[in-house]
């Protein structure tokens, strides 16, 4: 039976990519199940409910069982061109993942405020907002976020390595507030 003929299938859920996801998740679950003996320990003279491996067994068992049942119910059972296109769409998110990790890498080096003031306008440029208005706005938003969280809400983000080269008074101000 085709998916669109199934009266019990959830409405508004796209079909493209479902099989790819189910297959990937099933492989992940099976790998966890295979590594269960080496990754958990059986402790002697301990009740089953207190065994360190009890809940991982429940969790991994549940993952394998329910993913298998879910995959078995999926139609069609062959990976189509739309699934592969969806897979490529998932890979597109990796670019922004890389942007985020680059930002994470920059903060301890050049400091939170400089990294933010460089990162957000650069990403705004990348996204196609290239007028002066958007670039200034993004820089202002970045600085505002830094001031709000670091100066006012006092979240713990260490100063950048570059702050060490600042004059003493400026350095302590930057380490504390920016």
């Amino acid at each position: 039976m085709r998916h669109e003929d199934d009266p019990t299938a959830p409405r508004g859920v796209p079909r493209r990519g479902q099989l790819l996801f189910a297959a990937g998740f099933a492989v992940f679950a099976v790998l966890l199940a295979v590594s269960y003996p080496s990754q958990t320990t059986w402790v002697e003279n301990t009740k089953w409910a207190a065994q360190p491996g009890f809940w991982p067994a429940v969790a991994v068992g549940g993952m394998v069982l329910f993913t298998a049942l879910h995959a078995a119910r999926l139609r069609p059972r062959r990976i189509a061109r739309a699934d592969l296109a969806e897979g490529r769409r998932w890979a597109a998110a990796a670019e922004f993942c890389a942007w985020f990790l680059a930002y994470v890498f920059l903060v301890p080096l050049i400091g939170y405020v400089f990294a933010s003031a460089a990162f957000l306008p650069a990403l705004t440029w990348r996204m196609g907002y290239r007028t002066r208005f958007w670039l200034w706005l993004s820089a202002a938003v970045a600085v505002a976020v830094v001031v709000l969280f670091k100066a006012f809400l006092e979240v713990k983000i260490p100063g950048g390595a570059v702050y060490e080269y600042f004059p003493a008074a400026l350095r302590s101000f930057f380490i504390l507030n920016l």
Partner: protein
Amino acid sequence: MELLWSAIEVLARWDVAAALLVGSIGGVLIGAIPGVGPAVAIAILLPATFSMDPIVGLTVLLGIYGSSMYGGAIPAILINTPGTAVNALTTYDGFPMTTRGEARRALSLAYSASFFGGIVSVIALILFAPVLARITPMFGSREIFLAALLGIILVVIAHRGQTLIAAALASFGIFLNTVGLEPVKYTRRYTFEQSWLAGGIDLIVVVLGLFALSQAFLLLTGEDEKTRMTRLRGGLFQGFRELARHPRIASVSASFGVMMGMIPGVGEFTAQFLSYTYAQKTSRRPEDFGHGSSEGLIASETANNAVPAAAMVPLLALGIPGEALTAMMLSVFYVHNVVPGPGLFQYQMDFVVALYLALLILNVLVLVFLLGATNQLIRVVNIPNRFLGACILVLSFVGVYSLRNSATDCAVAAAFGVFGYVLKRLSLPIVPIILGMVLGGIMEVKLRSSMNRVKEPLDFIDRPVAFILFCMIVVILSLHLRRVWLDARLRRETRWRIEHRPSRFGAHLYRRRQYLRSERGKALRRRRAAFPARPGDGG
């Protein structure tokens, strides 16, 4: 009365007042921007609240939770895009009202219905608190274990049509919670000899990845929505007069919101669905529903705003969050060594009532803000999606990095961000993962401690509350299995019908031609040829 005064004393501080203001206005703004939502905002703000007093931190988060639905109604009504997921039903009747030039009436009705739902639920729960204080001491380890199990079952079952994958994702959540050093026997579980896995996977890192970073990726890889804003005309107070004409629908919807909010895993969607269905079935004009019915708008907005206060009940009374937002709030309690559960109701009742009072004040603040600032507020709807995505990325960094200043945490969050992005693209549920993580931890601890006093399996349910919870689990599972069986039967019937229908037009014509060529067909045509011609027939 004494309790009320001590609760007011807890709230009578400048930082709580500031938290109320920031939470309420911030929540409305966040709700009004499609694509952000309270989950993203709470996930980002969570680490920042750790340095605050529990009452201050929780007030900010509760403010965002409670007021985002008010804000979410604005884009739902004006541009047919719900600001938060729970405002989806508001678009059914809100947007048709806008298209016929009644945008301000729809907004006013949404605000007044939301306010009514919020206030009724808070008052109901303040009155209900003494009863809860009497019931909660009956919950020991095994009762809390069973309640958590019930919660996880309800969360899974609530995703109708996706139950199997929801169960798999809930199991994944339970698995994530087990990774790291086991706290009793000190053995390693799924650490793969990696030192960064020994400490376990932090809930907040997962939450930020699955909610905030995934949303940023979704917005960044998507396209900007083109919105056309409607000019607002007329007063915003007319909604109260209109609401007063539908007291039955408003009160029943608020009751559904309170009841569904208290049950873990059920939440706003079921409350809205039930109240909307009730309003439609009892309306004199059911045909108007979905085409700009004021009753439909009242039902959906009252129900969803009655939920936040009620959703705090299982969290405060048993330490069991019913959905993702309260699961995030649980971490605020743990950071401050305030253990939500029966003890909280027994020994810190003023704290509980103070939280409810904060919600009450919050509703008033939000209403005042909306009545005065709606014209300015609707501009935030126009912020381009991809720029918003870039901003969320910057804000998410604060949330993850400020936890332990760990780049590894950021990498883990980014990985969960991609995973959450995939889930969102496929419309698969994320909430079971978070609840699996939180409830899995609770179940592990409570099962271990309760099994020490259990000699035979039936001892586990020998106390009245445990027995009732066990019966509820059995009944719910039986009902679900019955539903699965009925669905399977329906699928079988549909398949049979499909296999036995003439599915090809060519084959149908072929059979028709064969029939006309047959002796019986020829006889039929001969008989018909003898009929007198009808007037108007050619010839």
